[in-house]
């Protein structure tokens, strides 16, 4: 049961208030038409899915309705930081 700090509400909130929104920092290609099918497929579906540090997006769906980023270890479930959209993570260590 995760306890997540919403960087907008500036509080720890219960997991039930949030929805998960997948890997963070996946940028939509500027000009999709210029992409090959492989590149487009990669953007659509392929993910890093690491065991260890993961930058991911959450939505404070029952709270402020903002999306934000979380750096979390996918094996210990420890959360290292949460940060706003547009910000860069501080914790980016090697995959463990």
């Amino acid at each position: 049961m995760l306890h997540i700090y919403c960087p907008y509400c500036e509080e720890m909130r219960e997991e039930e208030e949030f929805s998960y929104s997948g890997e963070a920092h996946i940028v939509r290609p500027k000009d999709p038409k210029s992409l090959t099918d492989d590149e487009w497929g990669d953007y659509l579906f392929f993910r890093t899915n690491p065991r260890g540090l993961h930058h991911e997006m959450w939505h404070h769906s029952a709270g402020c309705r903002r999306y934000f980023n979380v750096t979390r270890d996918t094996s210990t479930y420890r959360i290292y930081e949460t940060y706003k959209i547009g910000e860069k993570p501080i914790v980016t260590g090697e995959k463990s």
Partner: protein
Amino acid sequence: MVDPMTKYSGFSLFKHALKHHEDWQKTWRSPRPKKSYDVIIVGGGGHGLATAYYLAKEHGITNVAVLEKGYLGGGNTARNTTIVRSNYLWDESSKLYDHALDLWYGLSQELNYNVMFSSRGVLNLGHNLQDMRDIERRVNANRLNGIDAAVLNTQEVKEIVPIINDSADIRYPILGASWQKTGGVARHDAVAWGFARGADQLGVDLIQQCEVTDIVVEQGAVTGVQTNQGFIGAKKVGCVTAGNSGVVAAMADIRLPVESHPLQALVSEPIKPIIDTVVMSNAVHAYVSQSDKGDLVIGAGIDAYNGYGQRGSMHIIEHTLSAICELFPMFSRVRMNRTWGGIVDTCPDACPIISKTSVNGLYFNCGWGTGGFKATPGSGHVFAHTVAHDDPHPLAAPFSIDRFNTGHLIDEHGAAGVAH
């Protein structure tokens, strides 16, 4: 010639009993890894073991090792709710799963190991009009594909499961169900052990506590794997690592369209037989059957976040049990004994990947997500063919990884439901 003392039977049990069971042989050897193999299978779950078995049995490739980082069958194979059925929606997937179902029949005899496949039937309940439309559609497709399937109304469901709550004025009344009589459950551990024993007897080396840490690729072709027990060479490497597939793929610089999520399940304390079939409901979200030991085996939902912890969050369990109590009010005073989690490798279209890769000699069989146990024999069978011939088995061909680039997805979310 199999030694009659090695072949399992009531007779051999009796003879061993006379010797106080002191002479039973090992179910499988514990060999040291050789320098190299024709084929290395990474992952000793049910699918990996079945692959090795069929490689040896059907393709005569016996210089094979299965490398398992933990204990055989300890991944999702050890922790699934064991539901077996083949009533999927699309031609491609229903044929694949039905191929597997065919193999379930006779599997105990084939392996000389009782996998306790119990064809007690599987119900998928419908709770709203769209559920029922989907059920009709799927059942019709199944019938025309030669797959056992029927649509039942509420009364017919009640006859099969007399204890179910068939009241019309509950929040989501049961409107009907799809029914696959030939589906059922099996003893998950026995499936892994039976394939392991079968593979071992055919000469396959099963190497436990052997974690693959790198996949070695030279000039676009795989040459072996690095493990915690050293380098092991291989002409071909088949990865069957379920929840860890993304991690293993990364070793060969490959990304997969797969995310690993916790999926939880739980058992009650053992009680006397009360439910003789498998009941699944997507809409109310409950899956239940009763094991031969007497515990109710209940599948919970997937946790939304990526997770390799083999555990999930409590509210998922709570949600599942409110659904169970709604469908089966008399289970309310039964008690939960244990919960656990697995790591499921989910694909965007809820279908597996059985595929060659951009690296020569490297193959992946993954993405079975929340529902691959039922496919174990079939998955091993078609994957062995794919590896042996370096060419997909016809049933496996649609499940190539290319589909994510061509757009030929096989969306089974409806039939796969959220889980199992």
